[in-house]
């Protein structure tokens, strides 16, 4: 073991590049938030409803979509979105857009399964009552089913936030300025890999720990209020 590595630890370089690393970390946090809201909540709910549809033409495509995005690695999805999708669709996307799209689809697939389980947890009588009262489908979903499903799905959905945060670091394979990409650039520029990567790791772990601890507290509160 080389002890000089530790004794010659250069704090000045960390101090100088800390703002750049923070900026990168902020990108991860923004991506986590966007992925959770757009993917997990909005698209996830739509996919869950589509997956429970009576019509095979709606049910099957959404089933295939969910299974495909769940059973392939995010890294492959991200590079596919950035290098293959534009060729197929003719749309040019920036690395950030491709990364966000891959993340949103990936998260939506995971969360739709959680939300689907939540909807199935709503007693059948509630659906039957809504239908026998002649409520239109939108009213039944928005006023009867989803409010009850929300209570069931909130704790497990909170649990996915840490996975989403960890997944955002994978998106650094595309040239987005997240904390890992920033660390790579600064480390090759300053030739101080130990200082820079250790700082990046500490920052990422701190955010991960905050999400884990806060998430566990929130989950606990929702579980207790439900009982």
């Amino acid at each position, binding site marked *: 073991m080389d002890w000089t590595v530790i004794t010659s630890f250069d704090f000045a370089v960390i101090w100088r590049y800390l703002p750049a690393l923070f900026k990168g970390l902020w990108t991860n946090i923004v991506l986590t938030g966007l992925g959770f809201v757009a993917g997990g909540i909005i698209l996830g709910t739509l996919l869950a409803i589509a997956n429970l549809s009576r019509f095979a033409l709606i049910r099957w495509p959404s089933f295939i979509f969910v*299974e495909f995005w769940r*059973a392939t690695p995010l890294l492959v999805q991200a590079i596919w979105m950035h290098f293959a999708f534009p060729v197929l669709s003719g749309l040019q996307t920036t690395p950030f857009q491709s990364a966000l799209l891959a993340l949103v689809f990936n998260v939506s697939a995971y969360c739709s399964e959680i939300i689907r389980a939540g909807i199935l947890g709503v007693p059948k009588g509630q659906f039957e009552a809504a239908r026998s009262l002649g409520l239109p489908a939108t009213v039944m979903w928005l006023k009867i089913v989803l409010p009850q499903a929300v209570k069931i799905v909130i704790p497990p959905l909170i649990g996915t936030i840490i996975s989403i945060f960890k997944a955002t670091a*994978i998106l650094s394979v595309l040239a987005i300025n997240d904390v890992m990409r920033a660390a790579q650039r600064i480390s090759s520029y300053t030739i101080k890999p*130990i200082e820079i990567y250790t700082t990046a790791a500490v920052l990422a772990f701190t955010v991960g720990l905050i999400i884990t601890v806060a998430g566990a507290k929130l989950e606990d509160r929702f579980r207790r209020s439900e009982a």
Partner: protein
Amino acid sequence: MEFRYQIIFQNYPLLIEGFWITVQVTLIALTLGVTLGALICAMRLTGSRTLDRLAASYIVFFRATPEMVLIFWGYFCVPLIFQMKVSGLWTGSITLGLVTAAYLAEIFRAGIKAVPVGEVEAAIALGLKAFPKWRFVILPQALRLMIPPLVNYFTELLKNTTLLSGIGVAELALQAYLLGGQTFRYVEFLSAIALIYFAIIFPLSLLSRQLEHREARR
């Protein structure tokens, strides 16, 4: 555009090479993960508070930190700190193994804790010593409960092996990406490997869900 699938078959030796690296990474990570995971789980079950805290901190650390960050740290910092030459394949696989251990320890513990207390009490009341108690009473029941989450975690590990492409390990994903760059045929290569991953992971994920279902109905 036309989909030139022949180009995949023309370059299949490189893809197979990449797939073989993926298998190696998975096996190294899995071996380390199972051994260390069992050890960490044991530390949590001894009843010693210090060991329990230590094991719990390990689990929290490796579950809260992004794998990509750990892989980069291991690749760039470990060789400098320990003054040795290590390949990305080994630092990356060991990092994945350390992460796997954290998840497996929790799966093992949940399985053991799910064995009804009455079973353990009955074993003790019958005067069974530690070995037969674990070998014939606790483990057979616990292992059955662990199988669905273990299969599920295996698929996660397989997906995480692709992260090693970030440090230049030429596993399946990086190999396909490089081939795509050389031939300007990203669509063919990236779609092909997406299908390969899907073909391996989807059946395993179905199996895990089916086993879980069967367990729930018992």
